[in-house]
């Protein structure tokens, strides 16, 4: 058991949808905010469509787009 924070982010290649027991694959996804929609490629479960957003993406590129849209 790890008791401290784990600085290494998960590697998308190691991720498996627990419900479908299927490895995630990169697929086409729509990201939306404030009425604007952008196509992006993200890891997702090919069976049930569960999309994975990494911390890196959420606090990096996504945050930038959110803030830019909020200031329009």
């Amino acid at each position: 058991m790890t008791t401290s924070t784990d600085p290494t982010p998960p590697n998308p290649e190691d991720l498996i949808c627990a419900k479908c027991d299927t490895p995630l694959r990169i697929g086409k996804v729509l990201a939306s905010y404030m009425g604007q929609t952008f196509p992006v490629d993200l890891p997702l479960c090919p069976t049930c469509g569960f999309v994975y957003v990494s911390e890196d993406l959420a606090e990096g590129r996504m945050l930038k787009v959110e803030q830019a849209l909020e200031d329009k």
Partner: protein
Amino acid sequence: MDSDHVRTLEARCVEEHPPACQNACPLHVDARGMLGKIGTGDVAGAFALYARVVPFPAIIGHICDHPCETVCRRGEAGGPVRIAAVERTLVEEAYPSPRPTARRQTKPRRIAIVGAGLSGLTAAADLARKGHRVTVFEADAHPLERLRHDYPEDRLPPSAIAVDLGALDSLGVVIQCRTRITGGSGPRGLETLIDTHDAVVLALGPGVAQDFAPTIHLADNGRIAIDSQSRATSHPKVFGGGFHGALGENYSPIGSVRDGRRAATSIDRFLQGASLTATDAREEAEGSCLYVNITSHAPVPPTEPSNPKAGYTLDEAMAEADRCFPCHCLECTKACAFLSHYRTYPKRAVREIHNNLSIIMGNRKANRMIDSCTLCGLCETVCPTDLAMGDVCLQARQEMVASGHMPASHHDFALRDMADSRSERSAFARHQPGFDQSTLVFFPGCQLAASSPGHVERLYAHLRDRMKGGIGLMVDCCGAPAHWAGQTDLHGEVRAHLHRTWTSLGEPEIVTACASCLSMFRAHMPEIPVRSLWPLLTEIGWPKGAGQGSAGKTLAIHDPCVGRHETEVQRAVRTLARGFDVTLEEISSPELTTCCGFGGLVSFANPEVANAIVDQRAAERSEDYLTYCAMCRDNFARRGKRATHLLDLAFPPTDGSDPAARPDPGFSGRRDSRTRLRIHLLRDIWEEDMTDPEPAWTVIIPDAIRAEMERKLILVDEVTAVIAAAETSGQKIKDAKTGHVIATLRTGPVTTWVEYENTAEGALVHRAYGHRMTVEVPS
């Protein structure tokens, strides 16, 4: 915010007013800017500033009678900056001066100037630069004859005169010496001059002008009658330089230059058919005054030149230039970490905010700046004209909300927290048990309830013990977050709800423990009688045994920003603390206290600025701080400054722990406290049937992750909800390498992600983050 209002606000900020030296200079030389450049050794830049305005820099640099020094504000702190001496070194260092160039004029006019003194030659230079054909007629053998007689060569070197006359020559000005202009219509007569030229300047210097009497009017003293501003005479084509005022006035070289310049400006207007009396912006600024706080500058004596006859060396001139403060107001910018973070001052900020609000398409770059003001009122307190940036920012926020342009992420979390504190999880109101009315109602405020619920219980018990007639309790939110966020409608809802609750309690007087609540009631619900808890406590005293263990402490007292003008409360708090034999130190005067970063919701919209504000305040004194606002205390604690609440002194922790070391409870801790306080009070005092909330899931969050969650505004409840949903539905991701589980849940406007590990003790959290965008696979 209409443009008229914006202009009124801008006009009240004096920062862009010219400094006293520039104001006093007949040519408005930017002495402050020039000294600043010399101070850094930028001789070329300094000379460029000087020569842009001064027509004969080499000459004036040696003989200027420097009215600037008389008004220099450094005079009140060691002696005026010796600007003229610095200028002399400057022009000597900057030789040879750059040659001025004349503008190409499509229709050059012929101008005659009578008299080759400083005034006449200034008019000649100015008009030649504009491209006109200028001829100067001088009775003496040389131009500037008077200067050659009046000043010894070590004061005004002939080389300086030669350089400046050379520049005049390169402008194409023709000087005819030994040519005396007489009255009448002879070949050298004034009438002839007027007939053969488009305009004439009479720059005669001292002496009477009887010869010209038939052509132009003379004043009683025998001189030509000249309008002192426009330099117009009775003849429309003739303008006067040179005399500068009545007989007996002291000779001023810089005054002569100004008169020549005014004549040239008027001729230019006359030739274009424009009004002579139209004043330019510079003249309008005359008499304006830049506020300068002299007391903040230690006296420094003037630099003495090692060789007084030679004047300053460049090093000496740089040292003297460094004595320039320089004059600025910036009283608010110096006091406010928000304004200094944005390196701005009200005049500029107001314009920027107005422009931001006016944007139809494009980026609203000032949104975050508008949301970074704590609305604390310090700027208007230190401003010489009481300009309140908080009012401007608040109005801007209200307009942003109304027009749908307020960025949701700035205040969303704070408003959801307010909603929680107003919800039935936390809020309630009751008469004292056994009473069907209240003479007073205690309003502890959501932050005291959240930070130290035990103190609310103790205080309420104490008030019930000492006060007669039924003391009600109203645990609720005053609506400050809605007001600060510019949410006018939501704030109206909060007020309506508070009014209804107050009415249902029989309209009793409200006693607040929180300075924000006090000010919100006072400003927005004037129908409700309200008073502060602290003066009341000086009347009724503390419970027996209060304040044990506090004696002998030395604490520096921090007043909350919303209470900067509440002198009665400030006095009461000091009396109460001293009653525990605590030695108090003042950080600043209470009126000049700063915000803790919570005001105006800045800690949500701009944590960087909020932290700068609280850190700046925390650094002011080394002692532990004493506060009487729960939010101030927690913010100091969050930034590592030891701080004690007055109630910590009165009711110290029973476990003997150090109250000044009590950590910031954080947003999740605050919510839990509010919920638990309601359950405790209703169960223990009103004997209502309350059940403790069942923990939905056992979640273990290491301290480092908890701190990250606090920074990212993610609540423990949200993390727990993600885990509970994932474990219930089975919708989750597994990391094959680490065995960690990754799950997500959309709660309100935010999607929360949690990476955790199922252990025997519960779910151990490794990571939590969120985003506002939504993602979905296209259908």
